[in-house]
């Protein structure tokens, strides 16, 4: 892809910063999300909590369903493809999706290779547990990164672990000498140039969001506090008692993540949070898909 296109795709992620991207399964939910202040929506047939409950093979959503959501809202629309499924990605590109999530939430189509994202005109976001994963996805052409977290659980511990791992590694790189950076590149299994640029800038070369297990405004604010530039909320909103109110509260919490008065205010009376399952109770660890 041309240098301009790559740049423009990174730029779109920059415009999403400080915002909340919400999983939606119908045009009605998409409207609710947009009205609540979502900066983008993720169109998918089943939210992660239900994917987890139903089991079986989980694939890209029906393009008709995605197109209906595209018609319903004016904010960017994202959708998921299976890891390594180049053709699902081409299909989403053909319907002019704004962002493709090559996602571990769906059943991987390829257990070795990720999609060569550098060949696409539309942008990709990918999940990462640590800095090595994040940089490998960027090298493949991802123009936005998110933590993997553990989707569909309502348990924030994994997203916290992943964000802390990424930020700590970036800080470590920033303090290294050149010879140490050569070795770091080897350990991270990524090109030296990429490692050197992270070390020089003290941040990833693309926008980095939190995802996986965000259920409350406090969860979202915690992720911002740890260095996320925005937040994906999957099952947390539409699996809760009052999706509209919770969605609004999470949007406000991300903007004012350091104002504890506002956080206290938006945390009041949200009704039931998604029930959640903790990481020791689940059988499938989605975060382990795609390294």
């Amino acid at each position: 892809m041309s240098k301009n296109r790559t740049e423009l795709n990174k730029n779109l992620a920059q415009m999403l910063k400080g915002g909340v991207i919400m999983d939606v399964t119908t045009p009605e939910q998409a409207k609710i999300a947009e009205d609540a202040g979502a900066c983008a929506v993720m169109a998918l047939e089943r939210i992660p909590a239900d994917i987890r409950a139903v089991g079986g093979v989980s694939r890209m959503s029906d393009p008709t369903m995605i197109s209906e959501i595209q018609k319903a809202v004016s904010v960017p629309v994202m959708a998921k493809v299976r890891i390594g499924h180049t053709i699902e990605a081409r299909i989403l590109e053909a319907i002019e999706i704004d962002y493709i999530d090559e996602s571990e939430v769906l059943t991987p189509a390829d257990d070795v290779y990720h999609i060569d994202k550098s060949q696409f005109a539309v942008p990709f976001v990918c999940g990462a547990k640590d800095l090595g994963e994040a940089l490998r996805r960027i090298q493949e052409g991802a123009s936005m990164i998110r933590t993997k977290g553990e989707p569909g659980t309502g348990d924030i511990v994994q997203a916290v672990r992943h964000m802390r791992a990424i930020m700590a590694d970036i800080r470590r790189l920033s303090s290294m000498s050149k010879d140490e950076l050569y070795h770091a590149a080897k350990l991270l299994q990524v090109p030296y140039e990429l490692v050197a640029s992270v070390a020089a800038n003290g941040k990833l070369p693309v926008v980095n969001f939190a995802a996986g297990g965000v259920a409350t405004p406090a969860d979202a604010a915690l992720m911002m506090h740890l260095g996320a530039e925005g937040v994906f909320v999957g099952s947390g909103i539409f699996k809760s008692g009052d999706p509209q109110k919770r969605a609004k509260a999470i949007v406000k919490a991300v903007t004012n993540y350091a104002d504890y008065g506002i956080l206290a205010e938006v945390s009041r009376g949200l009704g039931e949070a998604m029930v959640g399952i903790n990481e020791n109770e689940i059988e499938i660890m989605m975060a382990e898909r795609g390294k």
Partner: protein
Amino acid sequence: MRIGILALQGAFIEHKHVLDSLHVESFEIRRLRDIESPFDGLIIPGGESTTMGKLLVELGLLEPLKQKIENGLPVFGTCAGAILLAKDIEGAAQGQGTTFATMDITIQRNAYGRQLGSFFTEEKFNDTVIPMSFIRAPIITKVNNGEVLATVNGDIVAARQGNQLATTFHPELKTDFVHRYFLGMM
């Protein structure tokens, strides 16, 4: 000189970086308390205009900032920021009462389509060629009472009306030229 940057959502840090490079003091506006001390100019960044609009209302910032703009505070809106300034937004979507609607222009949201329609070009802004990044950008379809500062393929992409400056592209990503023009308005 002190410039407030609306920091509810979007690419506000990019504007701060440009102002830093010009040695101009700036601060982020996220809540009412942030605008208690006086300031000399306001930047409304790119991002999602619907998100920013809702938050402006929710956080009680819409009216006080609107008043300041109407009282002559220099304001510079990029992309979503330009939408929030426009009096007239073509087509549907943007809820009434969630934008400043202070600038007498008509704007069309997502005028180039989806992300595949985003593009980069170099064109004249006020007679100087500068880089312009358009990200799911709007187009200014009418300037009722003001000055057109830039066009791309015949479409208006920058305009000024007194104390208000709007660009549909993102100068903060590539150049400090438009920021310097804005500072000159003070």
